[in-house]
Each structure stands twice: as C-alpha cells, then as structure tokens.
C-alpha cells in the first residue's frame, strides 16, 4: 500500500471503506455511497491528506454486473503532489451525496455524470442536464444504450424512415 492515507481512512471510517486497490501505481479507495461526502471533506481538511484539488468526477457503467455504476473521484494534493482515486458503486436508481459542498468544482462534473449516466446526486445545487438537450430521453453513456439512436436515411428508404420520425406526424 503506497499511500498511507488508506490506512488512516480505514481507521477513521471503519467499514465505510470497502476496499483498497493498487494498480499501476495508482491507489483506488472504495467508499460506501452514504460516506462519500464525509470522506471527501476529511481528505480535504486533514493535514496529512490535504487533497485540496478535485481533478475529475466521472462514472463507469459495468452493466450487466451489479451494482452497475461506479463513480470515480480523482483527487490531487497540491502540497503533497499525490493523486488518489475514490470509487463509489451504486445501483441503477440509487442516488449518492453530492460533493459540491466540499469542492465547488464538482458541480459541473456531477451534472455531466447525471446527464450521461442518469446517476442522481443528492443536495446538488443545480442538477440539470448539461451537454444534452433538456428534453433528451435516456442516458447515452450507459452500456445498454445504442451507439446510434437515430436511423440513417438513404435515398432508397428516405420516406420510410421519415415517416417514423417523431415530428413527421404533425
């Protein structure tokens, strides 16, 4: 275990820390969903940790495995020059606490995650879609979402496809 902070977290948060993984020199700490905001606040404020910068928040869909969504938080410490990844696993429809109260930078990252995966963050100040239009249905980055949603029109099937389009009926 390269980052001593993992042991500190385990001692402090007990079974809210569900695992520590080392891969290619990167430390990943698995955190229970309900504890993530507390863990983040601790990592930011603790002198020995001082993870003062949130690089990135993103999600991975491991469908068809369950729980299918893994939310990754990439932290960076300016003073210690180290990186850390926190990972939270949630089921479809399960929400997790927002970390916007800890790092305001999380605001747009969490909106993007919500937009593309449909993972809801509790207590987020402004959880709207960010990249896709407000009236878009579904969440395209889920593994079971098709890569191409709209049918491609060719000269031989133009009328046929056009008749199926939602606006054609009006």
């Amino acid at each position, binding site marked *: 275990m390269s980052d001593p902070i993992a042991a500190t977290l385990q001692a402090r948060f007990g079974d809210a820390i569900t695992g520590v993984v080392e891969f290619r020199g990167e430390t990943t700490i698995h955190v229970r969903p309900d504890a993530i905001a507390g863990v983040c606040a601790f990592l930011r404020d603790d002198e020995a940790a001082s993870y003062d910068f949130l*690089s990135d928040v993103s999600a991975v869909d491991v469908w068809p495995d369950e729980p299918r969504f893994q939310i990754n938080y990439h932290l960076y410490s*300016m003073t210690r*020059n180290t990186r850390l*990844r926190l990972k939270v696993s949630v089921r479809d429809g399960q929400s997790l606490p927002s970390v916007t109260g800890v*790092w*305001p*930078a999380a605001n747009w990252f969490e909106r993007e995650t919500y937009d593309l995966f449909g993972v809801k963050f509790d207590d987020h100040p402004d959880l709207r879609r960010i990249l896709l239009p407000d009236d878009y249905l579904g969440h395209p980055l889920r593994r079971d979402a*098709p890569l191409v949603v709209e049918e491609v029109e060719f000269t031989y099937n133009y009328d046929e496809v056009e008749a199926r*389009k939602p606006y054609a009926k009006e």
Partner: protein
Amino acid sequence: MSASVAPPRSISMTFDELKGLVSDRAFSGETLLLNMGPQHPSTHGVLRLLLELDGERVVSCVPDIGYLHTGIEKTCESKTYTKVIPLTDRMDYLSPMSNNLGYVMAVEKLMGVEVPLRAQFIRVILCELQRIASHLVWLGTHAIDLAAMSMLLYCFREREMILDIFEMVSGQRMMASYFRIGGLWRDVPEGFEDAVRQFMSLFPSHIDEYEALLRNNPLWLSRTKGIGAISGQDALAMGMTGPGLRGSGVNWDIRKAEPYSGYDHFEFDVPLGENGDVYDRYWCRMQEFRQSLRILDQALKKLPKGPTITDDRKVAPPPKEELAWSMESLIHHFKLWTEGFSPPPGEVYVSVESPRGEFGCYINSDGSPKPRRVHFRAPSFANLSALPSMAKGVLVADVVALIGSIDIVLGDIDR
C-alpha cells in the same frame, strides 16, 4: 429501431426552470435577461450565456453548453485502443497533440509500455509547438474581441509556420494523429529540425512585436487590468487549471509537478501572475511563449538518436519490410489491425499539461480489445465552470474579455 428523442419543444425556458438560476429580481422585470450566443463571435465557438443584467452590470451568468456534443466518449467504447487516437484530436482542436499525448500515455501506462527516449523528446517538441500555436490563436482572438484587430493577422502568420511543421511530420495541419501507442507513427522527416530552428529564430522578435502592440496600450490595459479577478484559492476550488490558475498565483504546472514524457530533462520556469485578472492570465501566456522556446531549444539540442516506437510487438506494429520474411511479424501485424491488443483489466488516470490546463484521460479496461470506458477531463470544461463566479458584477462588455481570457475551446468542453 424506435427513436428515443422526444418531440421538439419550445427552446425558451419556462419561468419555473429559471428559478434558482437567476435572481428573483428578473421575474419582476427589475433586471434584464439577455441571451448571448451561441452564434456570437466572441464566445469562441458555440457557447451560449444567459446573462442577467442590472443596467450594464452582470448579476448572474448561466452558461449553456453542449451545442458541439458529439459523443466522443461513447464512440471510443466501440473502437480498439489504436483507433481512438484520431477521435482525441477532434476534441480540443487547437491542441490535438496534447490530447494525443494524454491518451497514448494513458494506454501506455495501462499496458506497461516503455517509450523510446527519441519518441518522448519529439513528443515534447511537438507539444510545445502546439502550445505556442494554441496560445497564438488565443492571443489573436482575445485581442480581436477587445478591438485590437491587427493582432489576429500577426498571430495567424506565425501559427502558419507551426502548422507547416505539423504537415511536414504527419501530413496533416491540424488533426495530426501523429502519436501512436508506444511511440510515434514514424520518425520525423529530414529538414524537421531546420524548420523548427527557423521558427525559433524568427519567433522571439514576433513576441516583442505583440508586446509592443499591447503592453503599453492604454486601451488594452483598461480592458484587462483588474477585470474578473479570482483568488488562487477560489480558482483551485472551482477546478481551474493551466494559465487561468497560474494567473492567480498558484504554482501548479503538471510538466513540473509530475514530469512526463521526459519533461524533467529540461529547464524552464513557470510564469505566475498575482491578481488573477484578465491581464495576469494574458501575461502568463505571453511568458509561456518564451518558456516553450526554451524547452524547444533544449529538446532539439538533446534529441537522441534511436527508434521512435517501442519494439513491443503486442502493441506496436512491426516494420513493414519485416512482413516479407517473418511469419511472426505478419501474424502480429494482422492481429494488431484486425483485433487490436487487450490490456489487463484495470483503470488508469493520466494527466498532461495542455495549453489550457490539466487534460486528464481515464481509461477503464475490462480485458477486451476495446475500452470499457474512456473519459476525458477537459480543461476548458472546468475552466468555464468558474466563469459564473468571475462574471458576477462585471460590465457586460467585460464578459467578452473574460471568455477570451479563460481560453475555452467548445470542442473540448462538449466532447
């Protein structure tokens, strides 16, 4: 196949949707809601802002992005690792080399591949040229937004020389896709070093020219000094990176903090601002021109001889001539171009210092030849999210200066 897009709705937001985004004064008509963009030249692409104005002062600013969303992260999941490279060029189209570098470095870390030193140095040379080219577009467009018309013409003149060098090495002026996993597509052609040297001999006098036009220009100073200041602490909390963060005095440059691709071989300084206003961000980028030239000079002097791509045949294709006599090479070639290679299951996050800040690349592999998830941490995305807090209280004309100073690329933001 059923279409999953709902019938289009009126584009304007309802009052309910606006609640919480703008102040209550907007509903009584006390303040004015102004739409800016997406087809506005000073928004540098297709950024739309909803501005709430009290007279000429901005009360609140709500960015609306996504007009250029192309689903690149989704597309990556259906491609082999090598075929993702051209997609990365098309995100931040002003710094495709840095995007390439971030992505290939992430795959190299995932695969545990060593890159030959010559390839690393050429990568650094091209990335620093890219930084200069990107800053030139920024300077030209930023200045033209603030009515310094001639800057654009000068900047694009010099940028042309860099694009010619890119064309020389890769055949492409902008979307080079020159980096490969494990090294480079091929070695640089003859005359490359001379072309870079020639650019380096001309460019310092051009920087002086830009500074002569702007440094003591009262119009430029009054439009930039003290505008949109953000403290280092706030910039950090908002996730700002790159010259935007360094303009506020925070000394963080990934090239220094976590040297990659041989940056630890070179000496250079990290220019820092003090006030975090539009002028300091401008000043930082102007100094970065000179620092990039320093790195270029050292990299050319130290450029070693040797191979430009790894000899790990599981990642990089064998030389073409080997296919004629080596069965094993033929098999490797065939496997690489049909199936691709399979990294071990796991995840990596690699970040590089792009001209705009921290460009991060997260890859999650499930052990198959295609990535399960590729996520790009776009520097412009995080930098733009700090705009609402910077824009509070400035004049509406200064919003244009602010957008220019954080140097956004909408392709990068929307991906």
